[in-house]
C-alpha cells in the first residue's frame, strides 16, 4: 500500500465553501427553540412533560451521533472502500457529543434539584406507582437501587458521554491529521481504535438504552433493548449521512464525487437496518406475547389499553410504526431505482428520521401518566415540547457539524482508499 493516494484528485477537494453563516443560523434556530422549550416550564404542572420531551430529543440526536460513530468504526474494521467519502461527514457529526453532554446536564440538574422524579420515577422514593405503593415501598426497586439511584445514574451518564467523546476525538484527529501529512499510520491507528472500542461502544449504547429509556418503567426488562436502540441509531445516522451527501451534491461540492453506486450502497444499508429494526422489535414483542407474564405484558398494555380496557391512542402509534417504520420503507427500498434516484430516496430518508423519532417517542413518552395510571394521550401538548426540544438540540448539533465541516477538507483526500472510493463503479 502506498502511503500517499497519489491518484486522488486533490484539486476538487480544496477547503469547502464557507459554512459560517449556516452554522450561526443553525445555532440561532436551536437557541430560540430551546428558549421556547424553557417557556413551557412556566405552564403549571408541565415540568415533567417538558423534561420528558427534552429526553426524547437528547436520545434522538445522541442516537444519530452514536450511529455515526458505529458506522465509522465498522468502516475501519471492514477496511471499506466505498464509504471513505461519507465517513468524513460522519466524522463531523460525532463532534456533537460534548454539546449533547452539556444539553443532558439540565435533566440531571432537574433530578438533583427537584423531587427527583422529573423524568425517571425511581428518582423519588415517594413517587406513587400505579396508584397504590410508592417507589420506596417497592421491593423490586430496592433490588435495582445500586444502579438506579441519582448518584450512580449521573456518574454513569457522564461516564458514557465521556467515553463517546474520547473515542470520537481520537478517530477525528487521526482522520484530519492524515489530510495534512498523508501518513498511512493514521489509518492503522483508526483500525486499532475501532477494534478495541467497537464492543465498548455497543455496551455504551446498551447502557444508554437501559438506563435512560428502559428504566422509565423499571419493573420491565427486555434483554434485546440495546439492539433495538442500535437499529434506531444506525438508521438515523445512515439517513442523515445520505441527506447530507445529497445536500452537498445539490450545492455542487459533491459533483464528480457522489456516484449512483454510493447511493446504492447506503440505500442497501438503510434497507438492511429497516429489516433489522423489525426483526428486533418483533423478537421483543413475540417473546413477551408468548410467555404472557403480567410483569412484562404491562409495558405493551400501557401502549394499547386504558385502565377500563378501551383502546388508547398509543395502539395506533404502534400500528403506524409497523407500517411506516418497517413495511412501507422496506417495500420501497426493495427497488434499485428508489435507492439511486435522488427525488425518491430523499423522502424515504426524511420519513425514516421522522419514524425513528416516533419510535423513540413511543418508548419514552408513555412514562407520563394521568390520574388513572394510563399513559397520557399521544396527541397532546407533550408533542409540542418534543418538537421544540428536537429542533433546539438539533440546532446545536447541526451548528457543531458546520463548525467541524469548515475546519477541514471536504473529503479525506489522503486516505489510502480514497481513489478506490471515487472510482467506485457497479
Amino acid at each position, binding site marked *: 500500500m502506498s502511503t500517499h493516494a497519489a491518484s486522488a484528485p486533490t484539486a476538487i477537494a480544496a477547503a469547502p465553501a464557507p459554512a459560517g453563516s449556516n452554522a450561526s443560523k443553525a445555532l440561532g434556530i436551536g437557541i430560540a427553540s430551546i428558549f421556547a422549550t424553557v417557556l413551557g416550564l412556566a405552564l403549571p404542572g408541565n415540568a415533567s412533560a417538558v423534561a420528558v420531551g427534552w429526553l426524547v430529543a437528547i436520545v434522538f440526536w445522541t442516537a444519530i451521533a452514536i450511529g455515526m460513530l458505529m458506522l465509522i468504526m465498522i468502516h475501519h474494521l471492514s477496511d471499506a472502500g466505498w464509504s471513505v467519502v461519507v465517513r468524513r461527514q460522519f466524522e463531523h457529526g460525532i463532534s456533537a457529543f460534548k454539546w449533547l453532554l452539556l444539553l443532558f446536564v439540565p435533566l440531571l440538574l432537574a433530578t438533583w434539584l427537584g423531587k427527583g422524579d422529573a423524568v425517571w420515577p425511581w428518582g423519588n422514593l415517594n413517587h406513587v406507582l400505579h396508584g397504590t405503593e410508592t417507589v420506596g415501598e417497592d421491593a423490586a426497586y430496592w433490588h435495582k437501587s445500586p444502579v438506579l439511584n441519582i448518584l450512580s445514574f449521573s456518574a454513569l451518564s457522564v461516564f458514557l458521554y465521556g467515553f463517546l467523546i474520547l473515542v470520537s476525538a481520537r478517530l477525528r484527529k487521526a482522520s484530519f491529521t492524515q489530510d495534512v501529512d498523508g501518513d498511512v499510520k493514521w489509518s492503522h491507528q483508526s483500525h486499532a481504535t475501532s477494534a478495541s472500542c467497537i464492543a465498548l461502544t455497543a455496551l455504551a449504547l446498551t447502557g444508554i438504552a437501559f438506563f435512560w429509556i428502559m428504566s422509565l418503567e423499571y419493573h420491565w426488562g427486555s434483554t434485546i433493548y440495546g439492539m433495538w436502540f442500535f437499529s434506531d441509531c444506525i438508521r438515523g445516522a445512515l439517513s442523515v449521512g445520505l441527506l447530507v451527501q445529497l445536500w452537498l451534491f445539490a450545492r455542487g461540492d459533491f459533483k464528480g464525487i457522489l456516484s449512483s453506486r454510493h447511493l446504492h450502497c447506503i440505500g442497501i444499508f438503510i434497507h438492511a437496518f429497516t429489516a433489522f429494526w423489525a*426483526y428486533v422489535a*418483533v423478537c421483543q414483542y413475540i417473546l413477551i*406475547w408468548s410467555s404472557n407474564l403480567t410483569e412484562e405484558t404491562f409495558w405493551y398494555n400501557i401502549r394499547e389499553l386504558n385502565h377500563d380496557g378501551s383502546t388508547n391512542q398509543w395502539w395506533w402509534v404502534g400500528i403506524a410504526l409497523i407500517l411506516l417504520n418497517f413495511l412501507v420503507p422496506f417495500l420501497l427500498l*426493495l427497488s*434499485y431505482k428508489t435507492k439511486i434516484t435522488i427525488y425518491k430516496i430523499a423522502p424515504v430518508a426524511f420519513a425514516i428520521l421522522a419514524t425513528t423519532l416516533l419510535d423513540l417517542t413511543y418508548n419514552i413518552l408513555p412514562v407520563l401518566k394521568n390520574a388513572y395510571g394510563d399513559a397520557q394521550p399521544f396527541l397532546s401538548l407533550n408533542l409540542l415540547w418534543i418538537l421544540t426540544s428536537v429542533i433546539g438540540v438539533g440546532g446545536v448539533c447541526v451548528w457543531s457539524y458546520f463548525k467541524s465541516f469548515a475546519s477541514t477538507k471536504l473529503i479525506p483526500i489522503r486516505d489510502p482508499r480514497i481513489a478506490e472510493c471515487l472510482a467506485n463503479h457497479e
Partner: protein
Amino acid sequence: MAEQPYGLIATFDTASGVYHAAETVRDAGYKNWDCITPYPVHGLDKAMGLKRSLVPVFSLAGGIGGVIAGVGLIYFTAAIDYKLILAGRPFFSPIPAIPVIVELGIALSAFSAVAGMIVLCRFPMLYHPVLKSDRIISALDDKYLIVIEACDPMFSPTRTKDLLEKLGGLDVKELEA
C-alpha cells in the same frame, strides 16, 4: 451449402478499443453479441447497453410466495386442521406465525434467486462455440474479444465484418458453430 457459422469474432488489443467498439456495436442495434475480457472492465456493461439483471424479480416472486406459504401453513395447521386451545390464545394469530413467514420468505427468495440466475444464464451449458477458437486463451490473458452471433437479426457476414474491421477489430473471422 456450408453450415451457418456461429458468428464473427474480432480481437482488440486494448480495453479502450473494445470499450469504444462496444459502444458502436450497441448503437448499430445488435442484440445477440458479447464481449470477452480477461478482467471486468468498468463501465463496459453500459457501453454494451446491458440492462440490469432480472434476478431480483425472481427473488421477489419467491419471497412473496414464501410469505403466502408461511401464512397458509400456520393458518391451515393451527386454525383448520388441528385446533388446540393454548393458554386462551386465538387459534390463528399473526404473531406466532411471523418467524415461519420470515424464514420461508427468506428461504424461498434465496432459492429462487439462485434458480433465476441458473435459468437466465441458461445453465447447464456444457459447450459453447467460442471455446473452440484458439483466441479464447489470449482473451484470458491480455486480449479483448467481441463476438457477434449469426442469430442476431442485424447480422450479415459481410456488413458485420466490415463494421468490426472499421472499429479496429483485428483478425475478424467466422466462428464454427
